[in-house]
Protein backbone atom coordinates (compact mmCIF):
# COMPACT_ATOMS: atom_id res chain seq x y z
CA UNK A 1 0.00 0.00 0.00
CA UNK A 2 1.58 3.26 -1.10
CA UNK A 3 1.62 6.15 1.31
CA UNK A 4 2.29 9.70 0.40
CA UNK A 5 2.94 11.90 3.38
CA UNK A 6 4.03 14.92 1.39
CA UNK A 7 0.75 16.81 1.90
CA UNK A 8 1.12 16.34 5.62
CA UNK A 9 4.74 17.50 5.56
CA UNK A 10 3.74 20.45 3.42
CA UNK A 11 1.00 21.35 5.84
CA UNK A 12 3.42 21.29 8.76
CA UNK A 13 5.86 23.47 6.84
CA UNK A 14 3.12 25.93 6.04
CA UNK A 15 2.22 26.15 9.69
CA UNK A 16 5.85 26.51 10.73
CA UNK A 17 6.60 29.20 8.16
CA UNK A 18 3.48 31.19 8.82
CA UNK A 19 2.70 31.70 5.14
CA UNK A 20 0.00 34.36 5.12
CA UNK A 21 -1.55 32.82 1.99
CA UNK A 22 -1.91 29.50 3.68
CA UNK A 23 -5.19 28.29 5.09
CA UNK A 24 -5.74 29.28 8.69
CA UNK A 25 -4.62 26.42 10.87
CA UNK A 26 -4.15 26.48 14.60
CA UNK A 27 -0.49 25.57 14.97
CA UNK A 28 -1.02 24.09 18.37
CA UNK A 29 -3.54 21.57 17.13
CA UNK A 30 -2.14 20.32 13.86
CA UNK A 31 1.07 18.56 14.91
CA UNK A 32 -0.71 16.75 17.70
CA UNK A 33 -3.41 15.40 15.40
CA UNK A 34 -0.92 14.62 12.65
CA UNK A 35 1.34 12.71 14.96
CA UNK A 36 -1.55 10.62 16.14
CA UNK A 37 -2.69 9.45 12.71
CA UNK A 38 -0.69 7.03 10.60
CA UNK A 39 -2.26 6.32 7.24
CA UNK A 40 -0.58 2.95 6.90
CA UNK A 41 -1.70 1.81 10.33
CA UNK A 42 -5.26 3.04 10.01
CA UNK A 43 -6.29 2.73 6.37
CA UNK A 44 -7.04 -0.46 4.52
CA UNK A 45 -9.28 -1.84 1.82
CA UNK A 46 -12.03 -4.38 2.29
CA UNK A 47 -14.26 -6.69 0.27
CA UNK A 48 -17.24 -8.35 1.90
CA UNK A 49 -16.41 -9.07 5.50
CA UNK A 50 -12.64 -9.01 5.15
CA UNK A 51 -10.26 -6.12 5.76
CA UNK A 52 -6.73 -5.90 4.32
CA UNK A 53 -4.45 -3.48 6.13
CA UNK A 54 -0.74 -2.90 6.78
CA UNK A 55 -1.12 -3.39 10.51
CA UNK A 56 -0.71 -6.74 12.18
CA UNK A 57 -1.59 -5.51 15.64
CA UNK A 58 -5.25 -4.56 15.54
CA UNK A 59 -7.13 -5.87 18.51
CA UNK A 60 -10.33 -7.77 17.95
CA UNK A 61 -13.26 -5.46 18.65
CA UNK A 62 -11.52 -2.32 17.41
CA UNK A 63 -14.08 0.01 15.76
CA UNK A 64 -13.66 0.56 12.05
CA UNK A 65 -15.42 3.03 9.80
CA UNK A 66 -16.22 1.50 6.42
CA UNK A 67 -16.58 3.72 3.38
CA UNK A 68 -18.71 1.66 1.01
CA UNK A 69 -17.53 2.98 -2.33
CA UNK A 70 -20.71 2.20 -4.22
CA UNK A 71 -23.01 4.64 -5.95
CA UNK A 72 -23.70 6.62 -3.85
CA UNK A 73 -21.00 6.04 -1.27
CA UNK A 74 -22.18 5.35 2.26
CA UNK A 75 -20.56 4.98 5.66
CA UNK A 76 -21.00 1.93 7.87
CA UNK A 77 -19.74 1.20 11.34
CA UNK A 78 -18.15 -2.16 12.04
CA UNK A 79 -15.63 -3.87 14.27
CA UNK A 80 -12.42 -5.61 13.40
CA UNK A 81 -12.53 -9.30 14.17
CA UNK A 82 -9.87 -11.99 14.25
CA UNK A 83 -7.04 -12.50 11.78
CA UNK A 84 -8.13 -14.56 8.77
CA UNK A 85 -5.96 -16.42 6.31
CA UNK A 86 -8.32 -18.54 4.28
CA UNK A 87 -10.23 -17.96 1.08
CA UNK A 88 -13.38 -19.30 2.70
CA UNK A 89 -13.48 -16.31 5.04
CA UNK A 90 -11.83 -13.74 2.83
CA UNK A 91 -12.55 -13.24 -0.88
CA UNK A 92 -9.16 -11.60 -1.33
CA UNK A 93 -7.50 -14.87 -0.41
CA UNK A 94 -9.52 -17.12 -2.70
CA UNK A 95 -7.54 -19.39 -5.02
CA UNK A 96 -5.10 -17.58 -7.25
CA UNK A 97 -5.69 -14.26 -5.54
CA UNK A 98 -3.84 -15.23 -2.42
CA UNK A 99 -0.38 -15.20 -4.01
CA UNK A 100 -0.69 -11.60 -5.13
CA UNK A 101 -2.74 -10.19 -2.25
CA UNK A 102 -1.13 -11.83 0.76
CA UNK A 103 1.98 -9.69 0.90
CA UNK A 104 4.19 -9.90 3.98
CA UNK A 105 3.19 -6.41 5.10
CA UNK A 106 -0.55 -6.95 4.70
CA UNK A 107 -2.77 -8.50 7.37
CA UNK A 108 -6.29 -9.73 6.83
CA UNK A 109 -9.04 -9.45 9.42
CA UNK A 110 -12.66 -10.51 9.61
CA UNK A 111 -15.14 -7.66 9.78
CA UNK A 112 -18.06 -7.74 12.16
CA UNK A 113 -20.74 -5.79 10.37
CA UNK A 114 -24.46 -6.28 10.02
CA UNK A 115 -25.19 -4.34 6.89
CA UNK A 116 -22.41 -5.39 4.56
CA UNK A 117 -23.10 -7.41 1.43
CA UNK A 118 -20.61 -9.91 0.04
CA UNK A 119 -20.07 -7.74 -3.04
CA UNK A 120 -19.60 -4.51 -1.10
CA UNK A 121 -16.12 -3.09 -0.98
CA UNK A 122 -14.29 0.07 -0.09
CA UNK A 123 -11.91 1.67 2.35
CA UNK A 124 -11.73 1.03 6.08
CA UNK A 125 -10.50 3.48 8.70
CA UNK A 126 -9.52 2.26 12.13
CA UNK A 127 -9.28 5.25 14.39
CA UNK A 128 -11.46 7.44 16.49
CA UNK A 129 -14.92 7.93 14.96
CA UNK A 130 -14.83 9.83 11.70
CA UNK A 131 -17.21 12.70 11.10
CA UNK A 132 -18.33 12.55 7.52
CA UNK A 133 -20.84 13.93 5.07
CA UNK A 134 -21.97 12.72 1.66
CA UNK A 135 -21.70 15.32 -1.09
CA UNK A 136 -22.78 14.47 -4.62
CA UNK A 137 -22.69 10.80 -3.75
CA UNK A 138 -19.17 10.84 -2.32
CA UNK A 139 -18.18 10.63 1.32
CA UNK A 140 -16.12 13.53 2.62
CA UNK A 141 -14.24 13.38 5.92
CA UNK A 142 -11.20 15.02 7.43
CA UNK A 143 -8.85 12.32 8.64
CA UNK A 144 -6.49 14.84 10.20
CA UNK A 145 -9.40 16.83 11.55
CA UNK A 146 -8.08 19.92 9.82
CA UNK A 147 -9.57 22.22 7.19
CA UNK A 148 -8.92 19.74 4.39
CA UNK A 149 -11.47 17.19 3.41
CA UNK A 150 -10.56 13.71 2.26
CA UNK A 151 -12.40 11.84 -0.45
CA UNK A 152 -12.33 8.13 -1.18
CA UNK A 153 -12.27 6.26 -4.47
CA UNK A 154 -12.41 2.73 -5.81
CA UNK A 155 -11.93 1.94 -9.48
CA UNK A 156 -11.19 -1.09 -11.60
CA UNK A 157 -7.87 -1.77 -13.29
CA UNK A 158 -7.44 -4.55 -15.86
CA UNK A 159 -7.47 -7.30 -13.28
CA UNK A 160 -7.87 -5.63 -9.94
CA UNK A 161 -9.23 -2.77 -7.91
CA UNK A 162 -7.46 0.38 -6.86
CA UNK A 163 -8.48 2.11 -3.65
CA UNK A 164 -7.29 5.60 -2.79
CA UNK A 165 -7.71 8.47 -0.36
CA UNK A 166 -7.27 11.99 -1.70
CA UNK A 167 -7.02 15.49 -0.34
CA UNK A 168 -9.87 17.76 -1.38
CA UNK A 169 -10.44 16.30 -4.88
CA UNK A 170 -10.37 12.79 -6.26
CA UNK A 171 -7.75 11.94 -8.86
CA UNK A 172 -5.96 15.26 -8.51
CA UNK A 173 -2.29 15.01 -7.58
CA UNK A 174 -1.01 11.99 -5.69
CA UNK A 175 -3.23 10.10 -3.26
CA UNK A 176 -2.48 10.23 0.45
CA UNK A 177 -2.83 6.48 0.52
CA UNK A 178 -3.62 3.79 -2.00
CA UNK A 179 -4.14 0.06 -2.05
CA UNK A 180 -4.37 -2.56 -4.78
CA UNK A 181 -6.60 -5.64 -4.76
CA UNK A 182 -5.72 -8.35 -7.27
CA UNK A 183 -8.90 -10.05 -8.51
CA UNK A 184 -7.34 -12.75 -10.71
CA UNK A 185 -9.80 -12.21 -13.52
CA UNK A 186 -9.97 -9.79 -16.40
CA UNK A 187 -12.28 -6.84 -16.36
CA UNK A 188 -12.66 -3.50 -18.05
CA UNK A 189 -10.68 -0.69 -16.40
CA UNK A 190 -12.63 2.21 -14.97
CA UNK A 191 -9.73 4.10 -13.37
CA UNK A 192 -9.12 7.53 -14.93
Amino acid at each position, binding site marked *: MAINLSPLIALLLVVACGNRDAPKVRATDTPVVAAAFSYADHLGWWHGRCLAISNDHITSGTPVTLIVTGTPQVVRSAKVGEHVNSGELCAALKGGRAT*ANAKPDISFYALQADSIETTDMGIGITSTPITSTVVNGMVEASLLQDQHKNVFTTCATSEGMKFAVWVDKAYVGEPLWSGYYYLDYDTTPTCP
Partner: protein
Amino acid sequence: MEGNAIAKTKSGISWVTWADAHAKNSTNIDDLVEPFRANAKAFIKALEDAGATVTKSTTKRSDKRAYLFHWCWRIGLGKAKASEATAMIGVDIEWDHGDAEKSKKGAKEMIDGFGLAVPPNSTNAPALNSNHIAGKAIDMDISWEDTIKIKKKDGTVVSVAFMSDVNKNSTLHSIGASYSVKKLTTDAPHWSFDGH
Protein backbone atom coordinates in the same frame (compact mmCIF):
# COMPACT_ATOMS: atom_id res chain seq x y z
CA MET B 1 -22.13 -31.69 -15.01
CA GLU B 2 -20.31 -32.30 -18.24
CA GLY B 3 -22.35 -34.11 -20.81
CA ASN B 4 -24.92 -33.51 -23.47
CA ALA B 5 -26.95 -30.37 -23.92
CA ILE B 6 -30.14 -32.02 -22.66
CA ALA B 7 -28.98 -32.55 -19.08
CA LYS B 8 -28.27 -29.00 -18.08
CA THR B 9 -27.76 -28.01 -14.46
CA LYS B 10 -29.31 -24.81 -13.20
CA SER B 11 -27.05 -21.99 -12.10
CA GLY B 12 -26.17 -21.85 -8.43
CA ILE B 13 -23.42 -22.45 -5.93
CA SER B 14 -22.70 -25.96 -7.24
CA TRP B 15 -21.15 -24.37 -10.32
CA VAL B 16 -18.48 -22.77 -8.13
CA THR B 17 -17.46 -26.21 -6.96
CA TRP B 18 -17.57 -27.45 -10.55
CA ALA B 19 -15.40 -24.59 -11.78
CA ASP B 20 -12.86 -25.10 -9.01
CA ALA B 21 -12.50 -28.69 -10.18
CA HIS B 22 -12.93 -28.44 -13.96
CA ALA B 23 -12.26 -24.86 -14.99
CA LYS B 24 -9.23 -23.78 -13.03
CA ASN B 25 -6.79 -21.12 -14.07
CA SER B 26 -3.27 -22.32 -14.65
CA THR B 27 -0.13 -21.25 -12.85
CA ASN B 28 2.04 -23.31 -15.18
CA ILE B 29 4.16 -21.36 -17.61
CA ASP B 30 4.04 -24.30 -20.04
CA ASP B 31 0.34 -23.56 -20.59
CA LEU B 32 1.20 -20.28 -22.28
CA VAL B 33 1.36 -20.14 -26.07
CA GLU B 34 4.43 -19.60 -28.21
CA PRO B 35 6.30 -17.38 -28.70
CA PHE B 36 5.18 -15.73 -25.45
CA ARG B 37 5.94 -18.90 -23.47
CA ALA B 38 9.59 -18.96 -24.54
CA ASN B 39 9.91 -15.21 -24.07
CA ALA B 40 8.49 -15.35 -20.55
CA LYS B 41 10.74 -18.26 -19.64
CA ALA B 42 13.81 -16.39 -20.89
CA PHE B 43 12.87 -13.25 -18.96
CA ILE B 44 12.25 -15.20 -15.75
CA LYS B 45 15.55 -17.04 -16.19
CA ALA B 46 17.36 -13.72 -16.53
CA LEU B 47 15.65 -12.45 -13.38
CA GLU B 48 16.49 -15.55 -11.37
CA ASP B 49 20.06 -15.70 -12.68
CA ALA B 50 20.45 -12.16 -11.39
CA GLY B 51 19.22 -13.16 -7.94
CA ALA B 52 15.58 -12.11 -8.08
CA THR B 53 12.81 -14.24 -6.62
CA VAL B 54 9.95 -14.77 -9.06
CA THR B 55 6.63 -16.01 -7.71
CA LYS B 56 4.29 -16.93 -10.53
CA SER B 57 0.55 -16.74 -9.98
CA THR B 58 -1.77 -16.98 -12.97
CA THR B 59 -0.62 -17.80 -16.48
CA LYS B 60 -3.43 -19.09 -18.71
CA ARG B 61 -6.95 -18.41 -17.52
CA SER B 62 -9.77 -20.83 -18.22
CA ASP B 63 -12.23 -19.61 -20.85
CA LYS B 64 -14.94 -21.70 -19.17
CA ARG B 65 -14.31 -20.02 -15.84
CA ALA B 66 -14.40 -16.61 -17.54
CA TYR B 67 -17.72 -17.56 -19.16
CA LEU B 68 -19.23 -18.46 -15.79
CA PHE B 69 -17.89 -15.25 -14.21
CA HIS B 70 -19.23 -13.11 -17.02
CA TRP B 71 -22.78 -14.40 -17.13
CA CYS B 72 -23.35 -14.87 -13.41
CA TRP B 73 -22.19 -11.28 -12.90
CA ARG B 74 -24.54 -9.91 -15.56
CA ILE B 75 -27.57 -11.97 -14.59
CA GLY B 76 -27.01 -11.78 -10.84
CA LEU B 77 -26.73 -8.01 -10.91
CA GLY B 78 -29.76 -7.63 -13.16
CA LYS B 79 -27.74 -6.36 -16.10
CA ALA B 80 -28.90 -9.14 -18.42
CA LYS B 81 -31.79 -11.55 -18.60
CA ALA B 82 -31.03 -15.22 -18.14
CA SER B 83 -32.46 -15.84 -21.58
CA GLU B 84 -29.78 -13.60 -23.10
CA ALA B 85 -26.90 -15.78 -21.94
CA THR B 86 -24.97 -17.49 -24.68
CA ALA B 87 -24.08 -21.17 -24.49
CA MET B 88 -20.61 -22.61 -24.15
CA ILE B 89 -19.54 -26.06 -25.18
CA GLY B 90 -18.46 -28.05 -22.15
CA VAL B 91 -20.37 -25.91 -19.65
CA ASP B 92 -23.86 -27.29 -19.48
CA ILE B 93 -25.36 -24.64 -17.29
CA GLU B 94 -28.98 -23.56 -17.39
CA TRP B 95 -29.05 -19.88 -16.55
CA ASP B 96 -32.80 -19.57 -17.00
CA HIS B 97 -34.72 -21.09 -14.09
CA GLY B 98 -38.01 -20.16 -15.72
CA ASP B 99 -38.47 -17.43 -13.14
CA ALA B 100 -36.55 -14.16 -13.25
CA GLU B 101 -35.98 -13.96 -9.49
CA LYS B 102 -34.84 -17.56 -9.23
CA SER B 103 -32.50 -17.08 -12.19
CA LYS B 104 -31.06 -14.00 -10.52
CA LYS B 105 -30.70 -15.81 -7.21
CA GLY B 106 -28.84 -18.71 -8.81
CA ALA B 107 -26.45 -16.32 -10.53
CA LYS B 108 -25.98 -14.27 -7.34
CA GLU B 109 -24.96 -17.41 -5.48
CA MET B 110 -22.19 -17.80 -8.02
CA ILE B 111 -21.08 -14.16 -7.70
CA ASP B 112 -20.73 -14.68 -3.98
CA GLY B 113 -19.13 -18.09 -4.33
CA PHE B 114 -16.53 -16.87 -6.80
CA GLY B 115 -15.96 -13.73 -4.74
CA LEU B 116 -16.51 -11.45 -7.72
CA ALA B 117 -16.16 -7.74 -7.25
CA VAL B 118 -18.68 -5.15 -8.31
CA PRO B 119 -16.76 -1.96 -9.06
CA PRO B 120 -18.65 1.29 -8.51
CA ASN B 121 -20.24 2.69 -11.64
CA SER B 122 -19.21 -0.36 -13.59
CA THR B 123 -21.45 -1.88 -16.16
CA ASN B 124 -18.64 -4.07 -17.37
CA ALA B 125 -18.79 -7.71 -16.44
CA PRO B 126 -15.69 -9.90 -16.07
CA ALA B 127 -14.24 -10.29 -19.55
CA LEU B 128 -14.84 -13.23 -21.86
CA ASN B 129 -11.57 -12.67 -23.70
CA SER B 130 -8.16 -11.44 -22.61
CA ASN B 131 -4.46 -12.01 -23.03
CA HIS B 132 -4.56 -14.41 -20.09
CA ILE B 133 -7.32 -16.47 -21.69
CA ALA B 134 -5.34 -16.48 -24.93
CA GLY B 135 -2.22 -17.66 -23.07
CA LYS B 136 -0.29 -14.48 -23.77
CA ALA B 137 0.04 -13.02 -20.27
CA ILE B 138 1.55 -13.92 -16.93
CA ASP B 139 1.05 -12.56 -13.43
CA MET B 140 4.08 -12.73 -11.18
CA ASP B 141 5.67 -11.09 -8.20
CA ILE B 142 9.33 -10.17 -8.67
CA SER B 143 11.43 -9.22 -5.68
CA TRP B 144 15.04 -8.73 -4.71
CA GLU B 145 17.12 -6.71 -2.31
CA ASP B 146 18.94 -3.52 -3.15
CA THR B 147 20.30 -3.58 -6.72
CA ILE B 148 20.91 -6.50 -9.05
CA LYS B 149 22.31 -6.83 -12.55
CA ILE B 150 19.93 -8.34 -15.08
CA LYS B 151 20.85 -9.47 -18.56
CA LYS B 152 18.72 -8.16 -21.41
CA LYS B 153 17.97 -10.32 -24.42
CA ASP B 154 20.78 -8.71 -26.43
CA GLY B 155 23.27 -9.70 -23.73
CA THR B 156 23.80 -6.28 -22.22
CA VAL B 157 23.63 -6.14 -18.44
CA VAL B 158 21.57 -3.51 -16.64
CA SER B 159 21.68 -2.56 -12.97
CA VAL B 160 18.21 -2.37 -11.49
CA ALA B 161 17.30 -1.11 -8.04
CA PHE B 162 14.34 -2.74 -6.33
CA MET B 163 11.22 -0.61 -6.11
CA SER B 164 8.29 -1.65 -3.96
CA ASP B 165 5.96 -0.33 -6.65
CA VAL B 166 6.89 -2.45 -9.65
CA ASN B 167 4.59 -0.35 -11.82
CA LYS B 168 7.10 2.49 -11.50
CA ASN B 169 10.25 0.48 -12.20
CA SER B 170 10.73 1.52 -15.80
CA THR B 171 14.21 0.00 -15.95
CA LEU B 172 12.76 -3.41 -15.16
CA HIS B 173 10.02 -2.82 -17.72
CA SER B 174 12.61 -2.13 -20.41
CA ILE B 175 14.42 -5.36 -19.61
CA GLY B 176 11.15 -7.30 -19.86
CA ALA B 177 10.39 -5.57 -23.15
CA SER B 178 13.72 -6.76 -24.56
CA TYR B 179 12.28 -10.27 -24.17
CA SER B 180 8.91 -9.13 -25.62
CA VAL B 181 7.39 -9.43 -22.16
CA LYS B 182 5.71 -6.10 -21.56
CA LYS B 183 4.49 -4.55 -18.34
CA LEU B 184 0.96 -3.31 -17.77
CA THR B 185 1.54 -0.45 -15.38
CA THR B 186 -1.86 -0.47 -13.69
CA ASP B 187 -1.67 -4.00 -12.30
CA ALA B 188 1.43 -4.89 -10.34
CA PRO B 189 1.72 -8.58 -11.23
CA HIS B 190 0.74 -8.35 -14.90
CA TRP B 191 3.06 -8.83 -17.88
CA SER B 192 1.97 -9.77 -21.40
CA PHE B 193 3.01 -9.94 -25.04
CA ASP B 194 1.61 -6.44 -25.76
CA GLY B 195 1.43 -4.72 -22.38
CA HIS B 196 -2.33 -5.16 -22.04
